[in-house]
């Protein structure tokens, strides 16, 4: 609310304002408390159960590893992120593209959706070798693997969204002689936006996971290799603190990606969609 005139608000309104303020503070404070508690809990768990450092290291040790191996880890993170974002981009293009294709007719949907499902359920680890027989570039191979993991939620959610357009608006489009493409552009795509963005939140994490799985399955090592390789290496070398540091980095990246996707959602939806508008009444 802007430009509140300087009239005194009564008690009830003050109380409401106080609740709102607490809510605002709590939204940031509570997560921090939870994180701190988690870390303390993790540390206590290790100490009380005398968990050896080579099974689960104490948080301090992981932090040390994180600091010590920072440049190594961060460059690996970079490599992983390159695959992640390329795969996410392709997942968006592919997922939305296929959803649009499937929305064109029941025929197309029933004919090709099964293939999309097959891609989703086929374990990467099994088809990766086949991919690499026919794909020479390692980057492209990794990309395909990560894409396979990430595209389905976008496809599935966007398809659902395209079908969820208000039928009165569909009628209106028909009435005004909108072409198939125009109906898509002006009605179905905007209606699908909340669903698509929901799919994107899922796919964000999945493309990260996809990049990591792809590296596990298909990534050779050496310079410029990603976080999966760091994990494998640290695990093999029994350098468990570094392994945990790498995992933490992945988790943290996942959370950042999710937050980015949430922000994107907010950006596109806050003007009009229930899930994102700030209620004023």
């Amino acid at each position, binding site marked *: 609310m802007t430009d509140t005139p300087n009239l005194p608000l009564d008690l009830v309104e003050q109380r409401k304002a106080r609740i709102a303020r607490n809510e605002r503070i709590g939204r940031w404070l509570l997560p921090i408390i939870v994180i701190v508690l988690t870390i303390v809990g993790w540390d206590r768990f290790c100490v009380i159960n005398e968990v050896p450092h080579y*099974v689960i290291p104490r948080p301090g040790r992981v932090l040390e590893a994180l600091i010590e191996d920072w440049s190594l880890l961060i460059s690996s993170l970079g490599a992983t992120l390159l695959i992640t974002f390329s795969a996410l981009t392709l997942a968006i293009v592919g997922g939305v593209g296929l959803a649009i294709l499937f929305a064109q007719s029941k025929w197309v949907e029933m004919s090709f959706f099964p293939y999309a499902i097959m891609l989703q359920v086929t374990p990467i680890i099994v088809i990766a070798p086949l991919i690499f027989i026919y794909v020479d570039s390692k980057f492209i191979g990794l990309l395909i693997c990560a894409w396979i993991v990430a595209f389905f939620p976008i496809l599935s959610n966007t398809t659902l969204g395209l079908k969820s357009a208000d039928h009165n608006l569909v009628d209106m489009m028909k009435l005004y002689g909108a072409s198939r493409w125009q109906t898509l552009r002006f009605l179905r795509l905007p209606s699908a936006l909340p669903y698509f963005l929901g799919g994107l939140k899922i796919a964000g994490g999945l493309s990260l996971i996809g990049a990591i799985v792809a590296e596990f399955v298909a990534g*050779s090592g*050496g310079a410029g290799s990603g976080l999966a390789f760091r994990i494998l290496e640290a695990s093999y070398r029994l350098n468990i603190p570094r392994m945990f540091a790498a995992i933490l980095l992945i988790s943290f990246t996942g959370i950042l990606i999710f937050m980015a996707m949430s922000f994107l959602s907010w950006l596109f939806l806050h003007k009009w969609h229930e899930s994102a508008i700030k209620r004023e009444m």
Partner: protein
Amino acid sequence: NEAITFGTNWVAQAEHGGFYQAVADGTYADCGLDVTIVAGGPNVNNRALLLAGKIDFLMDGNLLQPFNSAAEDIPMVVVSAIFQKEPQVIMTHPGQGLDTWESLKTADTLLIGNGGYQSFYRWMVSTGFRDEQRKPYTYNSAPFLTDLKSGQQGYVTSEPYAIQTEAGFEPNVFLLADNGFNTYSTLIAAMQKTVDTKPEVVQCFVDASAIGWNNYLYGDATAANALIQAENPDLGDANIAFAVEQLKKYGIVDSGESETTGIGSMSMERIASFYEKMVTAGVVEAGLDYESVVDLSFVNKGVGLDVKSRLLGN
């Protein structure tokens, strides 16, 4: 009897024959152990279970992991080395100019698994192989078979057989052990605590395993194979036969030192030599107290030699 568990590093195979033999014919039971074998797999991490105290003994592929334990202050020790040679091989297509170990360095592609890449391949790199040659091997040989200029890792007992029977040709096989990678293999490892608190259990497991291996290789292996095949129904008789034959042909289990001091024997000299090699290769760091992760007190006692000579009739 005391119940203990032994984690292997792969699904049940002829390479685990002696252990199953000792379970099947009661050799473990005779010295007071009730042994459960927990099979591993390509992605199964039995090591974590050992470190967490969930299993008692672990089969370790070669000495590099124990060296890593030393580097990370992990109180794990090797108490026996069942294989004198690492059975790891590199295979190539014959007649493609890749017929010698040295020529492998010119191969376009070497398919090496993640584990192999972390261990023996790093040694290979130090001897002139290249990181760029390596592509991941995920236990699917199709990429190898389609690329004639490639090589692929394998166990001398398994992959060559599959290639022969399914792809119809006999690949070149280069045993790492014969090309300088002189580690012991199929090590029995335990936590230091086990060794300290239950030496008799360790001794029993080491001895009975040695006896089991002698029986498996030289005696009637039917019962052990039945156990293995129950665990892993896909493993055919011919497959097992091939594996056992290879184990013998290459002297994987029983050759050199073990012929005099029994299966499982280890010498600190050999370990030292391997360690030095790995240090030179940059695979492990220098200055590790590697002796601390090996305990020679349970082996080199000639256990099982009597069984062998009885079975071989001399």
